């Protein structure tokens, strides 16, 4: 059997990758995906712990996380559409009016 710490390490790695993606992608949609990646990593950790602790609460929380992610995607993508419509670009570095 695989020690749970492996799963958690994997989730940590995925999380870190998500952060890197979030930091290094310029495309708003891709950054969004990176966020989803982080969420998934967290879910993995949840599930791993729930299975090692024999407690289903972890899975319940994953359920909620997924729901929230869905809502977030709906609203966020709507916002992305607005941005693309108004600024004619998806590059976050060109969407920087809010400064100084």
């Amino acid at each position, binding site marked *: 059997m695989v020690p749970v710490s492996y799963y958690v390490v994997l989730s940590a790695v995925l999380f870190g990758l998500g952060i890197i993606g979030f*930091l*290094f992608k310029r495309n708003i949609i891709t950054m969004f995906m990176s966020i989803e990646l982080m969420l998934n990593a967290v879910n993995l950790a949840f599930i791993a712990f729930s299975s090692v602790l024999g407690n289903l609460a972890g899975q319940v929380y994953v359920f909620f996380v997924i729901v929230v992610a869905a809502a977030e995607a709906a609203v966020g993508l709507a916002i992305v559409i607005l941005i693309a419509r108004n600024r004619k670009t998806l590059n976050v570095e060109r969407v*920087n009016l809010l400064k100084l």
Partner: protein
Amino acid sequence: MFVLNHLWIIPLLPLLGAAVNGIFGRRWPHAVTNSIALGATGLSFVAVLELFREFTHLAPANIPWVQTYLPWIAAGGFRSDFSLQVDQLTMVMLLVVTGVGFVIHVYSTGYMAHEGGYARFFSYLNLFMFFMLVLVLGANYVVLFVGWEGVGLCSYLLIGFYFLRQSATNAGNKAFWVNRIGDFGFLLGMFLLFRTFGALDFAHVLPAAAGAPADAPGQFGTMTWIALLLLTGACGKSAQIPLYVWLPDAMEGPTPVSALIHAATMVTAGVYMVARSHVIFLHSPVAMTAVAGIGALTALFAATIGLVQTDIKKVLAYSTVSQLGYMFLACGVGAFSAGIFHLMTHAFFKGLLFLAAGSVIHATGGEQDMRKMGGLRKKIPWTYWTMLIGTLAIAGIPGFSGFFSKDEILAAAFTSSPYGSTLLWVVGVTTALLTSFYMFRLIFLTFFGSARYDEHEVHVHESPRNMLVPLVILAVLSVIGGWQAAPALWGGVNHFEHFLEPVFSTAAVVGEQMPSPKVPEAASLEFMLMLVAIGAAAIGLYVAWRMYIQRTGMPEKLAESLKAPYQLLSGKYFVDELYAAAIVRPLVWISRNVLWHVVDEQMIDGAVNGVADVSRHTGNTVRQTESGNTRSYAAWIVVGAIVFTSLLLWLAVR
């Protein structure tokens, strides 16, 4: 027992009147305003009468009757409630305040009928009534102080009632400031009281003080300091040297105000306070001497100034000051009941005099200078007669109220040891002489001789009835007001003194610790003194008659011959100028050059602007991080996440 159980009714009624008139009165016709103001005052007067009836049936054990309504300040050991108290002294004050107050309210409806701000005037007046009643009803120094400050406020408002006149506003400010000085002393005295006795309720303080050891003559102990500080407050409120300067200027206010506030009631608050805390004063010979000295000095001083004043109200004002000096003199020689007695009679006749003067002014169309009057006797007989009665009363002509009270004071000043002394008595008698002189001078200048005003412009007319009725009432009171003391003349009992006995009995208690205040005086001596006093009054009357009826040219000659003293007197001893040079100008200079230009502009504004600059510059620097670039923000978020996570893990492992 209704009013006794609901003392709050008495002050509350005027407050309601003030509120209603002040808020809505501006749109209402005078009739409504009158009914409200008079209703409020009259009702509270009725309540006081009822209270008096109930009070007489009260068992001596229950006196003073204290009613505590709600706790007000409770800080550490300090506790002060909204509590009212009734005893004989309060009773007298209540009767005077509400009675005279009501009468003057009635008078005002006539006097102010043609003035602007009618409702405002009555609202202020009612407010004054409220605070004055709180003052006399208060069961501890704090509540008393509330009333004290409140009446000060109302006096300020009413002096500056014609706020379009620069002089009026200045006078108001002057009164306010001078009173501040006194109140400062009063506050310090209260603090010291609390520090000494741990409470400010009369019920606690006075017995405790009675039990405490008295200061030896010439010793400046705690008692002395308390007494002197309280005396400062009293001097401020009751216009004694050196703080009397505001009262003459206070005549800028409407005449009823002068009558009610600056003659009958408020200015006597100082006397009331001294009498209220007589125990403390009795414990310090120094303080007693100070009170007596200040009183005597003020009496003489003001009287001399009054000799040469030409403004009818100014004369009365200075006479008020000197009469107040009389009261202080009485308190100073331990004859507190005499002082209160004079307070009452003075309230009657001085109120009467002011109202009459007001009537004269009203009749001559706002003329206040006596040199432009004369021969009004026939034209305004009612005013003339009532004012004459008042003059007789204040001059101490036998049979009139002033005679009894003044006589008592003089007797006490002469006889009562250890405080009394011949000197005080001499001063008192001199003052009496001067008083009768300038009062009759006023009468002769105003009502006798030939008319010195322009007949065609000024149509002299008798005042309306609602002004005359109060005059009559007060005149009657000025006559009979002193008769309770009459029996003392033929060895009977002085009812007034007897009535106040329980209050000042503590004086007797204290008396056992020191040489007895009153030596049993021989009736003959008493009689002698009385004769001298009457003589003094008569001399004053005669001299005035000589100078202003027989040989009307005499005063000018006199002024010519004695130029320097005349200038001195007419210049009121240049006290105002002295104060201006010694205190006011330096203060102004310091305020402008130090407080304004240095403290305010440099320090305070500097601090504020400095703070603003600092924050602005920090903002400027921090602002650089707000690049508007989401990725930078993300990086910052990561930094935060790292910090937070490491912290959590550290806590978890630690």
